[in-house]
Structure formats: C-alpha cells, structure tokens
C-alpha cells in the first residue's frame, strides 16, 4: 500500500515527508510501479474518449523508425553543397527546410546557426528539454540531464571535454539557451577532404552531436 500511496501523493496534493524517505532507485519495482501508472493513465484517458491507442502506436512507431538525426543530417549536407540553400537556411530555416520534401513537415521557429573557424555554437535548454526534434529526433538522455543543463551555459569548454572535443582557445563559444519555442540547429563546418562528395555521402558524416554543438562531424575516411 505504501507504493500506492507514494504513486498518487502528487495528484492529491498532500505529500508528507515519510512518503519520500526511500530512494528512487531505477530498479525493477520502481519501473513496475511506473509501468502501472502509465498504463492506468492510458486506460483512463482512452476510456474517457480523449485518446485513441492506435494513434499512440503510430506516434511511438514514428519516433522509433522515422524521426531521427538523419533529417538534420540531410539538411546540413544540402547546405554544404548548395550555397543558395545554405543562405536560405540561415535566413529562415523553417522555410528552407520546408522546401525539402524528404525531410518531412516541420513547424515554425527553426533557426540554423553556423559554425565558423571563429565561432562554435552549442545548444542547450537549461529549463527543460527543448530540442529541434523534427530535425534530430528525441533528445538523448544526456541533453536532458542535470550535468549538461547546469554546465553548458557556464563551462561549455568543460562540457566539450566530456565529449572529447577541444577547440582553440581563441574560438568564441556561443551557447544558445532554448528558453522559448525557437529551436536551434547547429550547421557544423564541412570537414576538409570531402571535395566532390555527394549529399548522401556527406550526410553520413554529420553526427547528431555535431548538430547540437557538442561534437564535430566524423573525419572523412573514419568507419565508425
């Protein structure tokens, strides 16, 4: 019964200290409790007529199979090959991306920011988990974690070190905290040694992290 009381302490608005004197290990029992709660939510909201489980299936399937960093990689690769597209992307990213049928529909408020030899851009959401998910899929756990959210705005070079990235001292680091509905996509620099590559080849070396600003594109010739 303790588990049950604990599970619903928030929604009834009375939380006494003893409900929280245990640790929330992510162990089996805790997950089972969460599974039960989420199942209860889904059942109640379905029976109330608010949601359709078949639509929920389709959403899960879309995130598992279709919506991922390859969308953003295609945009970056095109910008590397097509100066007019790049110009349009930097001027109005929502509009430019909407012209690419294969990337799919995106909403408003996308802004692309360009890395140069002088400026390295990095994107964070210190308040929650805002992320350009139509371009990059669901945010990775580290992006939503306290270490990243706390340090990215104060010690971005330290964060980059955690990712094995070291930038010259005189490179300006520009951190974009996504505090409203604008979503930022980093346009990384095209690596040397990729002259004549097709957009498809280029897209292969554009990593998710390079579009968040915590990584760089893969080296040409790298197999990983």
């Amino acid at each position: 019964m303790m588990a049950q009381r604990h599970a619903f302490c928030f929604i009834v608005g009375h939380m006494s200290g003893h409900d929280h004197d245990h640790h929330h290990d992510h162990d089996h029992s805790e997950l089972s409790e969460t599974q039960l709660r989420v199942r209860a939510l889904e059942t109640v909201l379905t029976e109330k007529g608010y949601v359709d489980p078949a639509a929920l299936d389709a959403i899960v399937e879309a995130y598992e199979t279709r919506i991922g960093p390859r969308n953003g990689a295609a945009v970056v690769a095109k910008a590397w090959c097509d100066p007019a597209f790049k110009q349009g992307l930097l001027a109005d990213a929502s509009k430019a991306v909407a012209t690419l049928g294969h990337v799919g529909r995106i909403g408003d408020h996308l802004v692309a920011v360009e890395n140069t030899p002088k400026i390295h851009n990095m994107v964070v959401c210190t308040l929650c988990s805002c992320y350009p998910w139509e371009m990059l899929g669901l945010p990775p756990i580290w992006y939503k974690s306290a270490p990243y959210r706390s340090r990215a705005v104060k010690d971005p070079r330290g964060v980059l070190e955690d990712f094995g990235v070291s930038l010259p001292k005189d490179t300006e680091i520009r951190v974009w905290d996504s505090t409203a509905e604008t979503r930022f996509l980093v346009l990384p620099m095209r690596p040397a040694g990729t002259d004549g590559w097709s957009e498809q080849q280029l897209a292969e070396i554009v990593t998710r992290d390079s579009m968040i600003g915590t990584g760089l594109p893969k080296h040409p010739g790298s197999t990983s």
Partner: protein
Amino acid sequence: MDGIHDMGGMDGFGKVESEPNEPPFHETWEGRILALQRAMDYAGAWHIDHERFARERLPPQVYLTSSYYQKWALAMEMNVVERGLASPEELRAGHALKPGKTLKRKLTPAVVQDGLTRGSFFRQQQAPAKFKIGDRVRTLNIHPKTHTRLPRYARGKLGMVELCHGCHMFPDSVAINLGDNPQWLYTVVFDGRELWGADADPKLKVSIDAFEPYLEPA
C-alpha cells in the same frame, strides 16, 4: 518559480555522460507517455507550458531522482486532475468512472502526422516591438512564484538584442490560465563575464530567448 528545474550555472552535477547507440526509448512505457502527451496536446487538453509548470512544481527531491519520462508521467497526472479531465480515484482505479469532458479534437491514426508537427506559437501582435536588433537591454530581476522562462542566471543582466522572432504566446500567462497574452520575442546575447563574473571564459557568449516583458532598455 525559483525551482530545481532552473539549472543553468549550478555546480556539482558531475560529468556529462553520453550513452552510445542510445535507443529512442529504454522502456515501452516511455513511448506510451510521450505519445499520450502528443495526443493530449493535439486534443487541446492543455498547453506545453502547463506541462512544464507541472514538472517544475514537483518537489525538488522527486525532480532530481525521477527519470525524465517519470517526471512526464507525474506532471501529466497533475494536469489531468487539475483540469478536471479525470479524478484521482479514476487514476487509482485505472478505469474511467464517469464520462469524459469534450475536448477540441482527437488524434486518430489518419491525422497522426498533425500530432507530430509542432504547432505555431506566433500570435497577433498587440503593440509595436519596443526593441530592435542591436539594442542594449537589461533583463529584469523578477522572481515570480509561477511559471516563467527567464532563467535565474540571466536576471538583472546587461545584454544585446540579436534576433527578433515576432510575437508569440506568453508562457508566463498561459501556464496560469491567463490566456495567450502575445508578446514580442527576442534572442538576447550576454557576454560570459556579465553572467559569471571576471573569471568567466573571455570567449564565451550565451543567449536566451527573452519575451519583451522580461526586458528594459539599458
């Protein structure tokens, strides 16, 4: 509110740990709660800032020890109950005991793409923009007890307007059911030393997206 969610600049959380080949979901229920959120958004049950404000109101010790999607589940329970869409008894029973309210629309497989496309946050302007690109501004030193998108580390700081994103619904109003209250939205950029003092990285610049009511001329 000055909650635990407002993490920018805090020390002590340790290294950023990346998980190689991270799957979209680690547990089946994570996908379900995400999909429920998208479906309830589509239905017009609440706005994204109601979701955020509910998570912000989780007790700090719960916020820090719950996984990301566990926080979503807790916050959704709060919104469902607070907005009268189901009762605590129903959530406890795991079944509806009364008929539901009428919502604006329902996400079905036929329109699922609409549930995956972000809505527009643009709203009709109520007044001309007070600031233009290049203007020096100072963020206000405000500490509302309710939802705001002005992070603590960027309050009372001198910055420059770099971009104007048009007029958007105002989260601080939406989250407490005062309506869209449209406001101009700007990217405001700060020097690292303005935020973190003389020892900050001299090559650091940080920007936030700031709604006009957060700003005054400087």
